[in-house]
């Protein structure tokens, strides 16, 4: 079923949306999915994941970020310098990668110092360990406690346990709904394609979850009863790697004779596969920390490659995957090297794999399409 004109998915096509424009809640912008949205939500904020959808030029941002940096982050900076992110009331950054972590300083020194921009926008930073260990978890738990206090002090508010528990339930429900929809992608006749799934994930990160959940329920009901997509002449693809917030890329893959069945992307599975424990006798901050710290990781977690590989293997089996596309935005060292290891490991398992680099915006569609078509033709 095509959701191309679905009103909820259309939210993904622009940076702003009606809910954002009419919101009475403060808008908390964040780059990385390691930021604990539940704490922001419990504090009365509208958590909004920063993205670069639609940006096709980084002329303004290039002054402040050298050309060896990630074009996704540069694009978001470009939008911010154009004033597109002036709606932010708070900025939340963590040390996810070298490109995005420096936005803490750049927003402070450049974006928020623009002429005629007078709003005070508090910034917050959490330091996330790079390995998975008990000591690392304790560190991260402490970071979340400090973050909560810092938010309370900056905005003169109180984030209660009750509010945290409500937010946890709300977000868990959201993840469950997303997973149910994602499960319908793995059917022999998938109910939605990868492009619509990506738009859904982006829309879901751009509105409050109270708004998203009924919309997801509606979509789930609608597609469950709809006929699936005939995949007879299409290759079933697992898509991995750097952030994708541009449907031109997924459309290019799917228009080349493929259907994206699953992913390990931050606008995708990485955000939804794990839930927070709902045992209310345990400190909610500890439960939020547990989920975030031990969740399906990205390669900024240095010692977790084997677990990421296991996830991929399961997805290949579950989705009857024909081939894997590894993609990275140019200059993304983290995904570039993780993909390098995956390429060898998947080839050892005799799984067709294709490793490409690209820019955040689709500047070289023909080159990519030719290469993707060649890969799909090679899959038996």
């Amino acid at each position, binding site marked *: 079923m095509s959701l191309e004109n679905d009103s909820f998915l259309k939210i993904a096509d622009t940076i702003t949306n009606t809910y954002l424009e009419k919101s009475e809640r403060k808008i908390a912008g964040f780059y990385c999915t390691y930021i604990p949205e539940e704490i922001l939500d419990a504090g009365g904020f509208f958590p909004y994941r920063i993205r670069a959808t639609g940006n096709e030029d980084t002329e303004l941002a290039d*002054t*402040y*970020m*050298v*050309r*060896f*940096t*990630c074009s996704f982050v540069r694009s978001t900076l470009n939008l911010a310098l154009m004033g597109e992110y002036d709606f932010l009331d708070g900025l939340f950054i963590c*040390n996810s*990668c*070298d*490109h995005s*972590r*420096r*936005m*803490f*300083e*750049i927003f402070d*020194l*450049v974006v928020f110092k623009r002429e005629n921009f007078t709003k005070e926008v508090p910034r917050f*930073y959490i*330091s996330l*360990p*790079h*390995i998975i*260990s008990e*000591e*690392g978890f304790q*560190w991260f738990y*402490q970071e979340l406690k400090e973050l909560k206090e810092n938010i309370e002090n900056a905005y003169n508010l109180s984030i209660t346990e009750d509010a945290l528990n409500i937010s946890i339930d709300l977000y868990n429900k959201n993840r469950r709904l997303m997973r149910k929809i994602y499960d319908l992608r793995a059917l022999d006749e998938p109910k939605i394609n990868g492009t619509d799934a990506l738009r859904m994930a982006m829309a879901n990160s751009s509105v409050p979850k109270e708004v998203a959940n009924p919309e997801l329920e509606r979509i789930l009901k609608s597609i469950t009863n709809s006929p699936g997509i005939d995949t007879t002449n299409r290759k079933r693809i697992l898509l991995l790697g750097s952030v994708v917030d541009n449907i031109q890329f997924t459309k290019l893959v799917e228009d080349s004779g493929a259907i994206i069945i699953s992913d390990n992307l931050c606008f995708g599975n990485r955000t939804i596969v794990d839930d927070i424990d709902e045992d209310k006798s345990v400190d909610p901050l500890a439960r939020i920390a547990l989920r975030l710290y031990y969740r399906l990781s990205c*390669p*900024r977690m*240095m*010692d977790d*490659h084997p677990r990421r590989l296991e996830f991929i293997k399961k997805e290949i089996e579950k989705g009857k995957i024909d081939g894997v596309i590894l993609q*990275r935005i*140019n*200059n993304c*060292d*983290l995904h*570039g*090297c*993780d*993909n*390098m*290891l995956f*390429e*060898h490991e998947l080839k050892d398992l005799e799984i067709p794999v294709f*490793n490409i*680099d690209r820019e955040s915006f689709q500047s070289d569609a023909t080159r990519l399409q030719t290469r993707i078509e060649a890969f799909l033709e090679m899959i038996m």
Partner: protein
Amino acid sequence: MNSNIANNKIIPYEMVLKSIRSTGELVERILPNGELDALRIGSKYIGNAVRDAVEKAKEGWPIIGHHFAFQREYLYCFDCVPVCVEGTSYLLSALLPDGIERYYDLMANWGHPFHTCSSQKGVMGMTLDNLFQFDAIITPTAPCDNTYASYPFFESKNIPLILPDLPFLHEEKSYKYYAEQIKLSLERLGEIIGQKPDYERMRNHIKYENETYKVQMELLELRKATPCPVENLFNAISAGIAVFASGTQDKLKFYQEYLEIAKKRYKRKQSYGIDEKIRSIWPYMLIFFDLSLCEFLDRELGMTILFDIFNYNFSEPVDVSSDLDSLFYDMARRGMNMPMMKESTDFYYSFIENCVNMAKDYSADCYVFTSHVGCKQFGSVPQILREALREECGIPMLMIDLDVGDKRFTSMKIIKDKLSIFAKTLL
């Protein structure tokens, strides 16, 4: 242990040894006194350190790869041969006539992205080519994406990888956490190589670093003089010494001997090369693939490199008389304040402020920023720094896009042309 097998575990060090010996001999035999002093002294002490490593490897001591950000002296709690991954790549890049591009290409063919840091790529390629056989590798989870991204390659080659986690932001809790991580990691490393860490011995090696620190500070002070009595090449050689001889008497002697030379020049108000015309600060790295650039600047342009990132910030000494917990706390603080670690484990406000202050304190005429393709953590710094220097000191900054370890990315001719044209605008 079979000596041939032992030899094979550390072949690049033998390459370093041969190169440094022949370089040292050339300098000794051909050049008159007073020429290339840093290289003359450096060859001797780097040679000593590398020869010692080669001999111990032959005796069967375990080969421990380490990131430059994990202090070599901490590894002397074991009978082991520490091999600095980044330092080995770049020293060989400087010393071998054809560089080490062959090893970068091996990794590129294996799928390693072109935009990753060549400092790791070199030794990764050598490992892929079986030139190194590490018994274990230790790296803090810092300073950059390249570290997190590239080191898992070694694990994929079945080399045990030990990762003391290093948090972002310089706070008391960070030092405490990292101190615990260093201790746990050394214990883990000991289990892997079948040795118990001898912390008393480690203290003795840290003492050499404490002594060296005093000389480094004295030398840094001398550089305020006009003309600067320290030659450009010293910056590169001292980085090499830090990589190969930290925690040893060789490093201390290198600094002590060079300090005497610099003092003599200072008393005579003598510069190295032609008269000093331009005083530059390189807040990031030098260019390693062709160190003759240092001589070109000294002798052709009269441009002094007052210091690069490895030569302007030195972390404070470790109190070696304290109990173990305090010792590790100091070690952690030292580790987080080492060059490049200091800048990458904190917001860059203090880096900008330091650069502005250094420009004033050292009477710099300009900054030269080598924008290294591998280094994303510095990717959003140059323009902010340029604006700060212009507004607060009235001096310009030249930025050169390059790979400091790969001559193919930006050729030396282009680099020299850019510097020459920049110099003309300053005179």
